[in-house]
């Protein structure tokens, strides 16, 4: 059975200042990855990046991004990701770094992992809450997490509001 196989890297973008996260776009991330791969692996890497690489999903509130690479060269392109030091959007340079959390064969497996990871992040935020109302919100969000109901956007917004309140 002939099948085009790919690897999806689930990465988390860490910035020092959370307000900058909202300005990221998928074109800017794609450009940053391509320039870094060109810097590290030269023309060969840049050529490998031109077919098969794309940014499939970006959540600017939590800084989560799905990158798609073709299976035969994903390790080489992955090894260039630690060298990303900043991303350029709208004329601004945001210093950041990418942290790869999971590698999956399909978007669906990555999504399943992302839901578990986000529930874990919500649980980590629970002891840091300042008042009872926030705790109730987080507990409700944790209970709501599941794949079938399509609630991913719901608790992503919770994440964003909780993270802003906890600053």
């Amino acid at each position, binding site marked *: 059975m002939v099948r085009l196989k790919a690897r999806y890297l689930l990465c988390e973008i*860490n910035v*020092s200042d959370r307000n900058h996260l909202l300005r990221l776009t998928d074109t800017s991330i794609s450009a940053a990855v391509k320039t870094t791969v060109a810097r590290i692996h030269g023309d060969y890497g840049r050529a490998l990046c031109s077919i098969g690489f794309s940014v499939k999903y970006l959540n600017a509130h939590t800084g989560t991004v799905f990158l798609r690479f073709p299976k035969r060269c994903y*390790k080489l392109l992955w090894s260039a990701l*630690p060298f990303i*030091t900043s991303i350029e959007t709208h004329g601004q340079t945001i210093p950041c*770094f*990418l942290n790869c959390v999971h590698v999956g064969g399909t978007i669906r497996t990555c999504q399943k992992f992302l839901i578990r990871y986000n529930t874990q992040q919500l649980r980590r935020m*629970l*002891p840091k809450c300042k008042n009872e109302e926030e705790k109730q919100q987080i507990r409700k969000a944790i209970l709501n997490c599941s794949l079938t109901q399509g609630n991913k956007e719901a608790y992503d917004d919770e994440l964003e509001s909780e993270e802003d309140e906890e600053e």
Partner: protein
Amino acid sequence: MSVFMDLNLSFTAERSRLRSLIETAAHLGFSTVAINYVHEPTTKKKQEVPTPTPINELIDQLPIVQGRSRPIRVLNRLTVVMSESSYFRPADPAYRSFDLLAISPATEKLFHAACMSYDIDIICVPVTEKLPFTLKRAPVNGAVDRGVVFEVSYSAAIRDSTMRRYTIANANSLMESCKGKGVILSSAAEKALELRGPYDLTNLGLLFGLSDKDAKEAVSSTCRSVLLHAESRRTANGIIYTTKSCSDSSCQQEAPDSELCDAPAAKRLRPPPRVTDS
């Protein structure tokens, strides 16, 4: 899930920077980090070995490691940059307050002596310049047999492109001599943005010439063996370990003190973990 460690975080005098470094390391999943104090003695004036600030002064609440329920463990480490053999004095009592000892040798003779006979845990491979001497197999294998590991730090590679070439070149020549055993990867990070996650590091190890398995070990099990080696180096023959008991307990999980036990350090009973939950 294995334990990941980053044994080289540069010490900065700014508390907030150090605190953000430790928090980022805990967020990325490192369960142990070591704050590195670099000591560079010169013949011109006698310099004192820096004393480490106690951890509870630096940061009051240690953050919980991502994916675990324990707080992050922070150790102190001293790196002596040696250009002459008289600079390293293992009997110096100032060395006792550090958990890990490292050496950065500058000449071939020193490198040979450090591998074979010095009482240390880590030998730093230079990454900011061309290797001043070739790494021969004999001292490298002698060091690996003794339990001393070689350290390659990667944050210079992230900062600058010429450093990147030196890092990759030196790391590859090290891997040729040591066949991938006894290597640890660590950042010499000064800012929180220079740290990288453990799976990214495993992949970076491939660029340095390690195989898949060796690269994963370089971030996890070899680091753990360095810690055990350091613990047994501080005890007398690996059996008795005494420490001054302080009145307020710190958050770290210290080994039980003044206990005569004939089990090796790995099998000694640890105090039960303190679970911080709401």
